[in-house]
């Protein structure tokens, strides 16, 4: 028995002055992650400070957009959807959805790639993942 991913309506995203560059890039089909220039380490989620040093010596850099599923669950609501943490090739684990597949076939360790899904109105797209 399969559970096809639903195309549930996604809410508008709260864009603020700090996260705006991330969402502007998402509109262009790019997945960005945080880079701490003090330590050279990537971080997630994007923010205006380094979670390693607390300095603002940070920038957003483009990620490859591929990774593996660290964990997941399927919400068995009227419109089922799959929530997951995807571990990007860069090492950070991203809170996301797995889409465009049979949700009953999703597994930990599965290879996935980023896709961008429209949200409400003019709001930027959400970064999701689908089996690679």
């Amino acid at each position, binding site marked *: 028995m399969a559970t096809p991913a639903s195309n549930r309506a996604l809410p508008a995203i709260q864009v603020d002055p700090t996260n705006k560059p991330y969402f502007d890039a998402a509109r262009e089909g790019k997945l960005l992650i945080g880079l701490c220039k003090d330590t050279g380490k990537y971080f997630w989620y994007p923010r205006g400070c380094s979670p390693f040093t607390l300095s603002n010596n940070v920038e957003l850099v483009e990620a490859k957009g591929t990774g593996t599923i*660290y964990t*997941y669950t399927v919400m068995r609501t009227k419109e089922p959807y799959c929530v997951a943490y995807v571990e990007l090739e860069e090492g950070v684990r991203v809170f996301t959805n797995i889409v465009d597949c049979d949700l009953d076939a999703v597994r930990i360790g599965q290879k996935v790639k980023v896709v961008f899904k429209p949200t409400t109105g003019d709001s930027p797209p959400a970064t999701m993942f689908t089996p690679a």
Partner: protein
Amino acid sequence: MSISGKAYIVGAYEHPTRKADDKSVAQLHAEVAYGALQDAGLTKDDIDGYFCTGAAPGLGPLNMADYLGLTKLRHLDSTDVGGSSYVLHVGHAAEAIALGLCNIALVTLAGRPRAEAMATGTAPRTWGANVPDDPFEIPYGRTVANAYAMCAMRHMYEFGTTSEQLAWIKVAASTHAQYNPHAMLPKVVTVEDVVNSPMISDPLHRLDCCVISDGGGALILARPEIAKSLKRPLVKVKGHGEATKNQNAGYTDLTYSGARFSGPRAFEEAGVTPQDIQYASIYDSFTITVLIQLEDLGFCEKGQGGKFVADGNLISGVGKLPFNTDGGGLCNNHPANRGGMTKVIEAVRQLRGEAHPKVQVPGCTLALAHGTGGLLGTRHGSATVVLERE
């Protein structure tokens, strides 16, 4: 400095309601406060310290202090770490009393998510405006249920934990709940009942989830000499630990909780080990919450929680670690979606010898209460207290 032995829990009260259609949240706060005062043998104007959270209506403690007529306050604390807050408040109240900041502290919790028909666990929920993680989680349908379910899925993957093992936690809670006349779910269930109940968020079934209930509870803590002048059995705060656990900058590990940090702090201050604990109140928003916390508190090795909880090991009179003998959040009560208060209250009942005779741990002198507040799968508060009957 240590708070060990510097404060006692002298009053405890759990509201009997589970659906408060005819009472406001503020009135529920008043009723639990009055109940705890009656239990302690104290009156309103004895209170000079007050503790509540963001679940209390109004700005911090201000509106509730006004409503309750608390005019002698000289110490306030509205630290909010979700459902673990009330365990943490026991520690903070003991600290304040130890420092002489107050003599008699009141802690209240109340809420009515059931009467308000709140979709507690299965609808995306934010904690307010400008929360920096929300844009990276809310669009993906983050709910309470799926944030815990992802922890269960990973635990199963890494350690081979099974749904049947998780179900034993519900079985133990329901075995206790049958003796609680106020329990929302007093029917004893089997492992099969749990694993055959509808799937909510893989691998958590409906019966892996706690109840949604109205009501609340209150605690009163006091200095040793005041406690000893009252007529109730003496329940001493012996140790406390608190912590937060978060996503660790994107390198999150969902196999453990903040109990890994708060537990050892509480045990060290109390000068005891997990093996000394005779009764444990363990936060049970979901079955997986219990399992992960038991491991992190040191009741078993990491990854062995499934084996530890199986075969009735948490059932009073049957297993090695009697837990949540009121039926817990899984079967009895999870007022205002915050279970830390009832965790402390049942530990106090056990230490006083006032739990139901069918679940009372004989000669219970050392108990633990532990809470997790927020979301196990993203970021949460963690608080542990060790309590001793004197």
